[in-house]
């Protein structure tokens, strides 16, 4: 077993599930794709452009995000923000995340005893 490789693949799997929550957490205000990407990277969320852009599109088609094109500036940009459903979804996911953290904490503390 290549330890490094195994660790990396499990880590990226763990992070993958949290990427979407991370994206939703930053979309309570209008953001365009690239600014969101920069924002995520600044906050330590490892996500690639090739993952983020399709994810935004998927979330939009599911009605979680709303979008509008801004063509008033020299560069046209597509701005995303949480829809009403998206806000509700994010609140529920936040709750789920807190529960998860609590459960995992308890689990790992129990193991140490």
């Amino acid at each position, binding site marked *: 077993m290549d330890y490094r490789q195994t660790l990396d693949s499990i880590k990226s799997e763990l992070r993958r599930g949290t990427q979407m929550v991370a994206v939703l957490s930053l979309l309570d205000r209008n953001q*365009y*794709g*690239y*600014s969101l990407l920069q924002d995520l990277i600044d906050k330590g969320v490892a996500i*690639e*452009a*090739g*993952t983020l*852009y*399709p*994810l935004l*599109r*998927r979330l939009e*088609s599911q009605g979680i995000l709303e979008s509008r094109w801004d063509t008033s500036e020299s*560069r*046209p*940009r*597509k701005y995303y923000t949480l829809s009403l459903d998206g806000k509700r979804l994010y609140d529920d996911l936040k709750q789920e995340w807190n529960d998860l953290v609590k459960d995992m904490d308890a689990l790992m503390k129990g193991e140490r005893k």
Partner: protein
Amino acid sequence: MKDWIERYTYDVARRLPEQNRAEVRRELDANIKDMLPDHPTEEDIKKALATLGHPRVLAANYRTKQRYLISPEWMDDYLQVLKIVLIVFGSIALVSGILTRMLDGTTEFSFEWIGEFVGGTIADVWNALIGAFAVVTLIFAGIEAGTKSQSVKCAWKVEDLPEVPKGNTKKISRTESILGIVLSAVFGFLWVYLLYHNQTMLTGYVDGVRFSPIFVDAAIRPYIPFFVVGAVLSIASHYVRLLSGRYTLSVATVDTVEKVFSLGLGILFLTNANLLNPAFLSDMDAVLNLGVDTLSGYIGNAATGILVLSSIGALVDIISTWVKAMKKDAPKETAK
């Protein structure tokens, strides 16, 4: 600028459903231009596109559903069926390819003839393999398409579970293998001996009158070495079974080679009309009074019957041996 951006967005979009293409291209174009400085050089553009990754991968990320010709759930069954069908169809094509060419009546062995023989047979086998592959793949793709919705895929009953095999079905008993060696040796020797002494042994007496031999000596002589090889192959096949004690891929391979060889030899032997001695036929007719044509017709029918039955038998045997050889071992607890 060489339109790198346009080419990239086009390469992604062409892999997506028609109705999404225009919007995805527009989005991508905007996103890529955001990644670039105000007056980008060609290097800047290439770097930005490289961070987005291969267009194929990006397109796959845009697609919501994974698409499969044959999905992972079916892959095991697909590969197992494919292996067996390829082996069986390949062997059949090999034998029939060799036989039809040997029976085409050519007596002159030229380089062209040998070239046609080898090349034609390889082409036959190749076509059979491609055909078998296509049929199996189409059937499985059909099953895949038919069970597309998850509800169908996940619907199963506890009653559908296969039974755990009792004992180890892969085991080959030692007695069976030893018996096989003995019988192959005895009958192989007997058959060769009889053919060799055709003049005196393969004939009959009725009311003290001796018949002419059944076969034409000169015609059967060339077959004798092949029958010896057949007997040796049969002994070898049982010996391999004895050594491994269970159905393995090598057992199945040797078994297939042996069956295909014997069957091919049998077909060549039984379909050769020159082997039967006309004198034997008239001698027999003198006793039975059925007419020589009727008699030879009976013998021909009997030969065809034997051929059909043994072909089916060999085919069933080959398939079942391969199925056993590919089967996973039974769990330890039950393999007593």
